[in-house]
């Protein structure tokens, strides 16, 4: 982020795998901070959706994740570093409708294979690093200039 100005705000959160009852909390907290800062509402919406989907991926597939939220006047970045099963075939995972979710998860209304594609659609930059059996790091960047 060196070329985008200094990070003025950095917050960290944790997300617990399997914790459906608190799922979405990080996204909601981030969203309310962005509203108070006064970013354009379309930027806030994109950030909220991308963060929520990434958060849900942690809840559904991983053991836990550290979430870092960083803001400069021009850029919003959300990084989710999880410990979990990792993604075996990233290209396949990025395809709409592809999912490895169990029937149980699908019955809860998740795992439709839209998570990663939806993050990609809403983010300006998306960087995913994954190692099977270790975990996945998802770095979402949103440009605040709309």
């Amino acid at each position: 982020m060196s070329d985008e100005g200094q990070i003025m705000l950095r917050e960290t959160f944790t997300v617990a795998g399997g914790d459906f009852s608190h799922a979405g909390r990080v996204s909601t907290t981030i969203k309310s901070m962005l509203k108070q800062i006064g970013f354009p509402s379309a930027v806030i919406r994109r950030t909220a959706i991308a963060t929520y989907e990434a958060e849900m991926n942690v809840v559904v597939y991983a053991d836990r994740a550290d979430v870092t939220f960083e803001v400069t006047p021009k850029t919003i970045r959300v990084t989710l570093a999880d410990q979990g099963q990792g993604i075996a075939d990233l290209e396949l995972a990025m395809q709409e409708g592809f999912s490895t979710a169990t029937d149980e998860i699908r019955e809860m209304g998740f795992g439709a294979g839209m998570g990663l594609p939806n993050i990609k659609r809403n983010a300006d930059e998306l960087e995913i690093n994954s190692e099977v059996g270790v975990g996945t790091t998802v770095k979402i960047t949103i440009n605040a200039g709309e």
Partner: protein
Amino acid sequence: MVAEGYYHAHEVNEGGCDGRMRCLKVCPTDAIRVRDGKAHIIGELCVDCGECITACPRGAVVPLADRLGQRSPEYKCVVAIPSPVLYSQFSSDIAPRRIFEALQRIGFDHVFDVARACDWETLASRIFLDEHEGRWPMISGFCPAVVRLIQVKYPELTEHIMPLEVPREITAREAKQKLSRDLGLDVSEIEAVYITPCPAKVVSIRQPAEKNRSWLDRAIAISEVYGPLRAALAAAEPVPSSELFESATYGPGWSRLGGMTSLLRTERWIAVSGMSDVTKILDDIENSRLRDVEFIEASACLGGCIGGPLTVENIYIARSRTYRLGEKYSRNIERHANQVEELYRKKFFSMENPLAPRPLSPLDPDIGRAIEMVRKRDEIYESLPKIDCAACGSPNCLAFAEDVVKGDIERSTCIVLRARAR
């Protein structure tokens, strides 16, 4: 429009307020502060849900609805338009028709029932949902507090609000046009008075979100007419049962949460009430979690409009009555289908202007300074006890931290920090 320009339908009577802070804790948008022992409402944040009116043990938060008996000489005809909630305030043996008569006895020249417009609106909503190609889900627009909550705190979701004129406005418009024709009066000589279960509808009349002027002119609280109506009902001759209800209706069902939605043809709906649960659903929509839901019926008051702060009857009793009223007086709404289809194409149900977002001001107009303020606020928040006792006069520790950053209050006001330092 400046924030200060927002009209609200209730105010704190400073003489009556002794700073007990009940209002502070129930306010869903954190719009109340208690300073120097008195409650203050922050106009920009208030969405007129009326929770504070109900919560105040001293009755010091007073609704500014109009009083019965104020008849302005400029009007030649005064028409009452009762919310269907009114019927549920009396025994279900009392037909709506008798309540209309009682309203005339206490001074209204005419009474128009919202029920027919409710039937129409249900059918119009079906057409809208069938043809909608934009974002899902759509959110009902008949609760003005929910509409304002969305405009203020969820500005991006404003386009999800159903862009149809609400039944009370349609009824007022129809009533004025009909009476103007029948009586040879100018529309401006007819006054339409809404009998309201909540202060939010007073605001929607004085300061409509979607047009320049409401078709309704005034609103009187159900609690204000209840006593006189009871007396008038007791004195009235019974009406023959054959004449009980000519335009009968699902109107009573509309006042109960889920009543309207259950008549839509979609299975993908959610009915939610109470500001904290409405907020959760709006958060889910913002996170794009509810894309496969078509319609959300949302009401600020728990249980729907029958839970309004200006009602009299216990909500559970009122709710039970809405079912009995429905059984007795409902008729199939499908009989209106052709007429509604025709009216819909003529834009009969369209709002005059689209709803616009009304987002809160950021902490600072300069984005860099605003980020800095959020950082400072979170730093202060981390140092606070986080028990949300509200003894400082801010509703919770996070709001207190924000008030400190804004320079509204000193951090040393926190009595828990002071006690721990000792």
